[in-house]
């Protein structure tokens, strides 16, 4: 087992190894204050700026008095996308941190466990079989598909008794994802309506999303957050290596189950609301790690806050560069996220893992 976990996929050094003095002194309180301010600023910016240039005074007036919100631009567009952006970014950031801690792989993305592929197939299957394209039905389908895919991945890995090492989980996730993507492609190619609806859904975006009907998603996300919180101690132990973690009395099965539940529920909630959005789950933990260090007690909430800020700001950028139109936040994220990620790698932060 030790041999497996020490192979290339695992980080050379344990995630969040305690005793990294250079992070301790910088003060996580200050880091969290900065992140809190960042979230606040991002939210205000998101409310104030949009492809329809309303002056900020008018925006405040509309916020205070919804009846004066002509065209529902503030309450019908900016408020929901701001709230959902914060929620989805927070979920993806934490899911990414749990994922990277579980797999001890700095390049792990929440999508690895088949969550996005499962959601995609469920959405496409719903359109193909049931002919449903409504936003709410899509949301439920995505949620269900993500959960089922994750369970399938975990079951396959568990059959091979591969729970101890993250490698079989990642391989099972990759295999299941490939299978689901193949079936999705079949549906999409076989039917024009499915293709059209899928194409709209698969570009992750906050635009046009509404708060109404998202209550179940919020409930799923909250449960996911509880699982993530419950997984923190295990993540810190796992970062020392599975052998050592077991030596510390850690139940690997329990640690993996709780972690997987957190990742699945958080990612599924996010995917259900916005469609698949990449890079937040991948980059947010890296930025957070640079700010607060590798201890998961601090890393998880910090990743969530970073995720929220990143997603919201990317959405705002997308709104401002299209004239009367917009660029979907999923696209902005892929472009900017890629650049940010390269910077992170170049600055050697990866070594801090």
């Amino acid at each position, binding site marked *: 087992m030790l041999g497996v976990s020490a192979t290339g996929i695992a980080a050379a050094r344990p995630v969040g190894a305690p005793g990294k003095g250079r992070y301790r002194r910088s003060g996580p309180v200050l880091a969290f204050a900065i992140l809190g301010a960042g979230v606040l600023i991002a939210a205000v910016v998101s409310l104030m700026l949009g*492809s329809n240039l309303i002056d900020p005074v008018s925006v405040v007036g509309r916020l205070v008095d919804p009846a004066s919100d002509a065209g529902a631009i503030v309450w019908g567009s900016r408020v929901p996308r701001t709230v959902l952006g914060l929620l989805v970014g927070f979920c993806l950031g934490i899911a990414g941190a749990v994922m990277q801690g579980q797999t001890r792989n700095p390049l792990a993305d929440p999508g690895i466990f088949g969550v996005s592929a499962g959601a995609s197939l469920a959405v496409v299957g719903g359109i193909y079989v049931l002919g449903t394209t409504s936003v709410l039905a899509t949301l439920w389908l995505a949620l269900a598909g993500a959960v089922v895919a994750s369970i399938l991945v975990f079951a396959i890995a568990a059959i091979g008794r591969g729970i101890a090492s993250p490698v079989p989980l990642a391989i099972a996730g990759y295999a299941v994802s490939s299978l689901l993507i193949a079936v999705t492609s079949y549906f999409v*190619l076989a039917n*024009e*309506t499915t293709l059209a609806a899928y194409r*709209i859904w698969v570009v992750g975006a906050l635009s*046009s999303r509404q708060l109404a009907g998202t209550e179940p998603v919020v409930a799923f996300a909250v449960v996911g957050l509880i699982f993530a919180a419950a997984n923190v101690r295990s993540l810190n132990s796992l970062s020392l290596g599975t052998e050592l973690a077991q030596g510390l009395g850690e139940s690997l099965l329990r640690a993996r189950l709780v972690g997987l539940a957190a990742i699945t529920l958080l990612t599924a909630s996010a995917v259900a609301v916005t469609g698949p959005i990449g890079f937040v789950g991948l980059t947010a933990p890296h930025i957070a790690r640079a700010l607060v260090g590798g201890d998961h007690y601090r890393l998880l909430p910090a990743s969530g806050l970073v995720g929220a800020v990143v997603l919201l700001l990317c959405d705002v950028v997308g709104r401002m560069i299209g004239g009367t*139109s917009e*660029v979907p936040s999923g*696209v902005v994220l892929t472009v900017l996220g890629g650049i940010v990620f390269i910077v992170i790698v170049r600055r050697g932060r990866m070594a801090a893992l």
Partner: protein
Amino acid sequence: MNPAQALRRPARILVPLLAATLALTACSSTGSPADTSDAAAEGGWSYTDDTGKTVTLDAAPERIASYADYAIGLLSYDISPVAIFGRVDVASDFRFDDYDISDAAIVGNSYGEVDLEALAEAAPDLIVTGIYPTDREGTLDLEGPLYGLADAEQQAQLEKIAPIVAIEIGGDGLEVVESMNSLAEALGASDEAVATAKEAFDAASADLQAASEETGLEVTQLYADADGIYVVKPEDEPETQLYGQFGVDFTNLNPDGDYYWDIYSWENVGQMMTGDVLLTNIEGFQQEDLAAQPTFADSPALKAGQVHTWQSAALDYASQAAHMEELAEILRSSVKVS
């Protein structure tokens, strides 16, 4: 489905990039293509397509392979293609419902997919597809692949099987229809068949004109999705251009600027709510999804429930006659709301 819209769908993601690309490709334009069909003097067959390319064969081609939209046009003149490739699943494409294509080999069901072996087995004498201009001036990118083909390499493979002719789909709708007709005639459609089809077309267009004048309604042709609403510019889309000639008043807020359509994010849709009737592209949001957008709730047409799913028809007399009848009926069943 409207292939032009599908073709440009990815454009909405990177609009500025696309504009730059179009500016570049514009440099590759050539002289204006001429549409001529005539039996060559030596008893052979020759046809000059809309790109200006002349195809010469020993005899008139009998076995035709065609992209789906033009296959429909050929079928309306009883010319049965031996092979069809489409952008969507051909077998379930309802536009073929009136025709028997059981003898045709279906050699492609998604954009850029052509089964070369199956196509070669069908042994076509000629392959028919289209070409879309890249701008309002009708610039044709002759370097790039023709419509429905993945790339120049694939096009070269097809050309090894049979010569390709292309119909230009852009600008003046009647020109597109006439281009389809001249190709069909070159491929054996009789003058009587064309004349009969024209009668139905003329009757439908006269009725559409009457319906437009009776009702005086403004029609908005749009595609909507999570990003917002795309309003088609009637002069840039051949079908709306054609119906505009017959008196249909299409929403035309900004005839200049971007080619083909203007995009309004959901925050900006208030700027395009002038229409009485909404024709929503079949591939995007329909009435229910439009109604779910708070920023579009004030649309008078939406409030009145005058929202119709719309799919651009193939540009031939028969398809257009049926489509114009449909539009006339929609107009007559709608009221002025704005």
